[in-house]
Each structure stands twice: as C-alpha cells, then as structure tokens.
C-alpha cells in the first residue's frame, strides 16, 4: 500500500536533479492555487456551519416536537439518503441559473446546505440525550430554543464535531457539482482548479513535477487536519456509520 507520502517522494526519486521548491513556485506561477484553496476552504466552512445549524434545528424537531407528518418527513429524508444525488443535478442547476447564482461561490454554498447525512447523525445523537435532562431543563422554564442550545448541543458536542469534520472533508473534495457551477477562473475550487491545471499543462514528462507539486499543495491542508485529528476521524467514522 502506498500513502500520500508517495506524492512527496515519487517525483524526487525519479527526477532527483529537480529542486523540489522550484516546482512549487512554478506551479503557483502557472495557476493561483492559493486562491483556489481559499475558495474551497471558505465555501466548505460556510457550508458546514449552515449544515450544522439547519440540521440541528430539524433534528430537534424530529426528536422533541410533536407534529403531523413527522414520520412522513423522516421517511422522506431516509429515502433521499439512498438516492443518487445525480438525480437532482439538472433541476438544481436550472434553479441556480434562475436565481442567477451560477458561477458564484454563493451558489455552491446554497445548493449544499441541506445535508441529509448530517440530519441523520444529529437525530441519532439527539435521541440519546437522556429524557430527564430535557425535562429538568423544561421544569426550570426553558423554552425550545434554550433546550436546543443549552442541553442538546452541548450534550452532542462530539457528534457535531465529527459531522463538521466529515462535512468539511467531503466538501473540500467535492468535484462534479462545483465543476458544473463555476466557470470563471477566479472562482475555481481547488479540485476544479487542479484538474483544469492538469488538463492544461498536459501530461508531458517534464510537467509531471509541477503537477505533483500542485497536488501536494492541494492535499497538504487536509493532511495536516488529518494528522492533528486522526483519532477523532477514525473513531467518528466507525461509530456513526454503524449507528446510521
């Protein structure tokens, strides 16, 4: 098995006469990767924050409030989880173009804020909050907002953290949908930018070091995040996958 380290070592062992650092500056001169990375990180953070806020609201309603059509709502969400996202691409694309949000970062953020996965995860976590705690808070006169903010969210900190982490990684890595939406260079996300760069400079032997350098730049932030938080990642993935 090879690891991402291979990306570091492979161009070095094969082109040892090339200085590694010049490849990085070379890649950065040909395409504004910092900008792409900023775009990706920025949209991913916005999406994750909105996803968590909206999902915790609906998860709260699904677990704590009584209303008609609750099970219908939950079942609809359950079914959407199983369906390929691709089935929504054409209408969503049309909707974004009607809203004038094609080729904008706002478009990417807005079309991604509904996360069925996060709703599931949070609903599952909210269900495990002991009833006594909620009742105790209510008897002290807490309303729904306070219960959500003061009881549910603090009790489910770790799930929320993991949902954000997974959301961030998948949004940073997302390719197909953003590549449909953004057309102008300065709005490219890193995945789109990287692939355009790859197709533009072509796969000639002498450009491979540059491509690899760009690759390393792309992967670096995620790798750092992963190294720092890898226990959380691994634990979160295995725990939540089985619960869902």
């Amino acid at each position: 098995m090879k690891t991402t380290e291979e990306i570091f070592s492979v161009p070095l062992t094969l082109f040892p006469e090339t200085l590694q650092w010049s490849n990085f500056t070379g890649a950065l001169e040909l395409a504004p990767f910092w900008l792409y990375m900023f775009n990706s990180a920025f949209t991913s953070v916005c999406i994750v924050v909105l996803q968590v806020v909206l999902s915790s609201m609906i998860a709260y309603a699904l677990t704590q409030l009584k209303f008609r059509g609750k099970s219908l709502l939950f079942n609809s969400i359950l079914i959407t989880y199983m369906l390929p996202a691709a089935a929504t691409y054409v209408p969503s694309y049309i909707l974004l173009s009607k809203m004038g949000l094609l080729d904008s970062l706002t478009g990417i953020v807005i079309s991604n804020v509904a996360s069925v996965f996060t709703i599931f995860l949070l609903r599952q976590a909210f269900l495990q909050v002991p009833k006594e705690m909620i009742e105790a808070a209510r008897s002290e006169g807490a309303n729904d907002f306070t219960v959500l903010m003061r009881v549910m969210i603090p009790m489910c900190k770790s799930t929320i953290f993991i949902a954000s982490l997974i959301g961030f990684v998948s949004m940073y890595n997302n390719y197909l949908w953003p590549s449909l939406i953004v057309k102008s260079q300065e709005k490219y996300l890193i995945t789109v930018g990287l692939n355009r760069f790859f197709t533009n400079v072509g796969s000639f032997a002498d450009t491979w070091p540059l491509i690899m350098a760009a690759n390393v730049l792309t992967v670096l932030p995620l790798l750092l995040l992963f190294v720092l938080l890898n226990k959380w990642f691994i634990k979160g993935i295995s725990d939540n996958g089985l619960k869902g």
Partner: protein
Amino acid sequence: MKRYGLLLFFVGIPLIPLLAFWFIPMFVSLWLSTTDWDYISPEYNHVMLENYQTILTSDNFYAALKNTAFFSVMTVIPTIIFGLLFASLLKNVMKGSTLLKSLLFSPWITPMVAMSIVWTWIFQPDIGLLNQLLGLLHLPQPSWLTDSNTAMWAIIIVSIWKNAGWAMIFYADALSKIPGELYEVGEIEGTSWWQNNRFITIPLVSPTTLFLIIISLIDAIQAYDQIQVMTQGGPAGSTRTLLYLYYQMAFEQFNMGQATALSTIIVILTGLLAFILFYTSKKWVHY
C-alpha cells in the same frame, strides 16, 4: 399559535434548502424526463415515454450499463475483502497500530481528483511507476489508460485503493466488538484459523458487511471524479458508466429530457439493488 411559529422555525427553515435541492428536484427531474427540452430554447414538447424508449433501445446505454455493473462488482467485492483483511491483520498482527491505521485510511481524505492525477502518472505507459516496475520484472507493460482493454481496470484499481482503508475502519470497529471468549472456546475445541473465520468472524461482522456493500454500491454507481480525470469515459467508451453518460447528455449535449430519463433509470436501479440486498440479507446477516 405560538406552537405553529415554533414549528415553522424548527421545521420550516431547514426544510427550504431540503425542498429546493432534494425533494422538489427529484420530482422536477421525473417530469423533465417526459419532455424534449434542450435547456436553451424556451419551448418543449411532452414526448411522454419516448426518452425512455430511446435510451432503452440505444447501444450506448447497454454498454454503459455493462461498464457500471462490471465496475461496481469489481470494486465493491475487493474493497470489502481488503477491508476485512486489513482490519483482522491490524487486530491480530499489528495490535491495532494507529500509525498503520492512519496510513491505510488516509486515501479516503485525499480528494479523488488529486489521487486520480497521481495515478494517471503511475499508469503512464513509458515513464509511469507501474510500468517501470513491471519492466524490472520482465512482465508485459500495457498502456493502461489508452487501451480500452485495460482502462477500466486502471480505474477499478484506483477506486479500490481509495475505499479499502475506509472499509477497514468499519471492520476494525466491528471486530473489536466480538467477545474474546468466542475465540477461546474455539481454541479449546481446536478449531483452525479458517474455521474461526468461517464460523465466528464472518457471521458476526455480517451487519457491517451489509452496510458496506450498500454504501459502496451506491458509491460505485455514482463514480465520476476518477473517470473524468483519468479517461473522460474513453477510450472508445470503455470506461463510460451510466453516471458519466448522464453527465455527457445533460451538461455536454444539453439533452435534458434524455438525461433526466437516464437519471430516473439510475434511481430505479439503485433502489432495486438496495431492496434486493435488504431482502436477501435476512439469509446471511446475523444481528
């Protein structure tokens, strides 16, 4: 009255994006699939089931269906097997080494686009790592991505490499929950390594297996990034899957009617497969 306001807030607001980008598009997509809309012109005709008819009688569709089926089977099964193998190696030989776990898992966090680019280089016919290694061993050196016989295999290799570590995490968790006494009993009765796996490990991780099969199958049907980067569906359509065909119809040819009809077919196929898996799972999944 206050109750409605509350509901409107907690359900209404989150429901807007959910409706706008999930529920409604599903139905709009279904409706579009009965039209001949081309995205640009404001007019369209209702052609009813003609789009479905065109797709179901076209060779492209069956070629893509075959590719998708082949790709799915060839990635899902090895992903599951490697995942279980790595997890049990970690448990029995490496004693749960976190470093190794992270190394095996790290492909999952790297963007598929970045990974596919690195692999494109590995698969290069003359300068790529793989063929240089094969050359050292005096084995045949296929031209991987440009040969329609090997291109799909190249994509399959990348997909397995990316997902095996991910499957391993689930299995590692499942394995750690198997009570040690079960193996001790086996030891007293003198069971072999194979019998241990056959009668203890595999049945006890079967819920994880079902979960992983369903998730990886949905993933495989939706594979796009690696195909786009590495082959663009070529050579000669040999790596064009259903989703790739859909993408080409919708966003290259702007044939929205046929594209949405195809997406409906993909949805039906996915649903059918999930249903069959759930149904047959009663026979081999032990909770």
